[in-house]
């Protein structure tokens, strides 16, 4: 898999922000996710934001245990998957730092938490971010708010010299919604067609 960098970003080998259209929870999405998180081998730290899956599920899906860098998970809890479930889930060893954001956290609060970890990790070294997922976020907040949140997040990622990819399940949204969000990203990877399109 390869991605095409933005024209005016020709100096970097990877685009900062990639929208990953992955139809449903499936192995292909996880595989590409792993590749984006670990592919270059130069990224030392990982920041994983998970909403629907528990931190352990998400780590199992995309973590590379060979990798030595630090892993931080921001667990955006939902009412259905509460702290109780999360703490039961966290039984057993994991090397990752996990921060739980309670279900009532609003987007400003979530931005705050992500920003704190992104700032910390990127001060220590190159950082790759997995945001899982835009689809889940659209269940918590309306489309304009999520769009604005992602504009800020993508700007923050760029400022931190990090790279990030954002999962979205295109099957559950109007095509217009996905096209609206496309403009926020440097590049869009569509796993339905295995097409790699430049935004």
């Amino acid at each position, binding site marked *: 898999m390869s991605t095409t960098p933005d024209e005016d970003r020709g100096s970097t080998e990877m685009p900062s922000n990639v929208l990953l259209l992955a139809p449903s929870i499936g192995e292909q999405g996880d595989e590409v996710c792993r590749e984006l998180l670990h592919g270059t081998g130069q990224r030392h730290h990982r920041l994983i934001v998970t909403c629907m899956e528990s931190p352990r599920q998400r780590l199992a899906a995309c973590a590379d245990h060979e990798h030595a860098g630090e892993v931080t998970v921001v667990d955006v809890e939902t009412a259905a998957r509460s702290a109780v479930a999360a703490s039961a889930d966290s039984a057993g060893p994991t090397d990752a730092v996990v921060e739980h954001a309670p279900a009532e956290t609003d987007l400003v609060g979530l931005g705050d938490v992500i920003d704190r970890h992104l700032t910390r990790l990127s001060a220590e070294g190159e950082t790759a971010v997995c945001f899982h997922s835009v689809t889940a976020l659209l269940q918590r907040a309306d489309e304009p708010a999520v769009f604005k949140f992602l504009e*800020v997040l993508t*700007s923050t990622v760029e400022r931190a010299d990090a790279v990030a990819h954002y999962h979205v399940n295109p099957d559950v949204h109007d095509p217009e919604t996905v096209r*609206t969000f496309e403009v926020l990203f440097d590049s869009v990877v569509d796993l339905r067609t295995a097409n790699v399109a430049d935004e």
Partner: protein
Amino acid sequence: MNTDNTTGGKATAPNRSRDDTAATRVVLVADRDPTVTDDIAAVLRDSYTVRSAYDSADALASLDPDVSVALLDTEMAGLSPRRVLERVRTGSVDCQVAALTDEALDLDASAFDEYLVKPVAPDHLVETVDRLSRRATYRTTLEEYYQTASERATAAGDRKERLDDRLAELDEQLDDVFVSFEGSEAYDAALRELDVDSC
């Protein structure tokens, strides 16, 4: 040049310039003490178009979409924060509101974006209004960015091209403001919803 446009004589509703410079941005000042209102207006007039209002009716009448920052006396008769904020954030009026107060406010428990304790030192006044003005610009530009992206999602041909050009301009304007934000402030500027019920 008299940049004042007081409420009584609503001479020009200036065309909302898309890439407005500070001088074309409008600040509304309303204190129950006309001397305080005039002093504050005099300091800000170097950099902003200032509207002075001496009572609550004028202040409310002055709150239109051109206003990007409003400085309002919390003790002005008839100018309850609730009335003001019901106007702000509804429809097209979306300005930053700072309270002019006699003592410090707990912003988290109030409906204001910021507060200024009187008497306000000119440096602090200008600095605060500059910051609020940047937040207002970011907010309104981001809203237009979303609207344009949403329109583009269903556009084709020439129209899509025009919208793409507009998006590129807006993106640049957003970046220009974003660099002035520290830490997670951009999330707050982009997404903070003032809770009218907390007034």
